[in-house]
């Protein structure tokens, strides 16, 4: 029998840095705003399990949006005249613009990978306006992922990005779930994954900023998979050491994409943190 999911998808038109953007977002639930940030070269579909989880949506209004160039969000007008190379300030600013446009009051911001990095910057800059952050696979400094083959005319970019990231899932994650993430990764536009990794591996360095995070103002939860080789557990431990009062869990048998590669296992870790955030 056909079943309709509670997720609602909408578009919002907003201005950011003098340009117009048409942004796609999905939402479900009521309560504390929980703004979810997808990984590099992917989109908000990664959060479909979380958006469908009544244990979350009974307490939280979950919102997941596609960054410009990703998923169903268009690039800005004139995109063909500039290379897509994401930078920290632009990334943080755009999240802030969506957060303001959707009128989210004291949200929890949850991000994974590059999203898990930028939530640290958000917490440093806007801690008085945030309830908290949940960093999945969060690192303050993550060199080593960028290479020229990620956007190269002799290589199928979608297949390379998807294969390059497939092994970031833990071997024990259910194959259909890991393959689903592969599929999402195969669909980004030319150079989009590379442009995101430009931010993640070349531009991002939050090692000084995170020392300014006051966890009495903004709660910090850090969840990292043991099989994540992009943001290794040690990299997240370094973050946790720099943020007194933060909570950190290393998830056994989990990789870099917990919300999509193995949601049934991940949700047990997540629910504990969201419960704490809601107090």
């Amino acid at each position, binding site marked *: 029998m056909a079943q309709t999911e509670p997720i609602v998808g909408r578009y919002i038109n907003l201005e950011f840095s003098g340009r117009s953007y048409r942004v796609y977002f999905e939402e479900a639930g009521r309560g504390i705003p929980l703004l979810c940030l997808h990984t590099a070269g992917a989109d908000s579909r990664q959060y479909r399990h979380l958006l469908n989880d009544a244990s979350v949506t009974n307490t939280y209004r979950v919102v997941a949006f596609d960054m410009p160039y990703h998923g169903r969000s268009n690039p800005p007008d004139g995109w063909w005249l500039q290379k897509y190379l994401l930078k920290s300030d632009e990334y943080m600013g755009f999240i802030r613009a969506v957060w303001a446009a959707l009128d989210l009051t004291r949200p929890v911001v949850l991000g994974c990978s590059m999203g898990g990095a930028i939530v640290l910057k958000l917490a440093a800059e806007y801690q008085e306006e945030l309830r908290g952050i949940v960093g999945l696979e969060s690192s303050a400094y993550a060199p*080593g*992922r960028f290479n020229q*083959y990620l956007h*190269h005319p*002799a*290589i*199928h970019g979608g*297949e*390379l990005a*998807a*294969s*390059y990231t*497939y*092994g*970031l899932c*833990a*071997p024990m994650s259910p194959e259909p779930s890991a393959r689903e993430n592969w599929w999402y990764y195969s669909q980004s536009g030319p150079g989009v994954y590379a442009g995101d990794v430009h931010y993640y591996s070349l531009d991002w360095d939050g090692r000084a900023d995170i020392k300014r995070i006051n966890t009495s103002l903004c709660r910090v939860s850090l969840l990292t998979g*043991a*099989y*994540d*080789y*992009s943001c*290794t557990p040690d990299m997240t431990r370094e973050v946790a050491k720099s943020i007194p009062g933060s909570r950190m869990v290393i998830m056994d048998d989990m990789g870099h994409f917990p919300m999509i590669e193995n949601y049934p296992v991940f949700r047990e870790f997540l629910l504990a943190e969201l419960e704490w955030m809601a107090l």
Partner: protein
Amino acid sequence: MTAFSDDWLKSFQERVNADAEMQVIGDWLTTALSLTCGDRRCIVRFERGKLVEVVSSPRIDVRCAFGFRASPDIWSKFLSPHPEPLYHDFFAMLMRVPGFVLEGDTLIAMQHARALHRAMNLMRSVGQ
């Protein structure tokens, strides 16, 4: 079965050629690559996704486009049925295990990333 022995390579060949996924994604996989485990080196040659030839201890006149080289200890960790983190995927090892090396024409390797990744993961099903 010792990894990269003649019996092991024969079993690997059978796994690749019977693999349902490789039949879907292998049409463009026509290349040769070397696999080096310590002092042992072999070259495996693919045609349209089929592993058609295995050359153990190749001489100078056996060509290949690229190859993977590592110590027996590193290969053993990769081939383990329950690999530890950082040894569970060849891209993970290329990033985090300095002793695991992609040599030769890396562009050709990455052009075949999808099928190559599948073939390498099939190695684990052969065991060691």
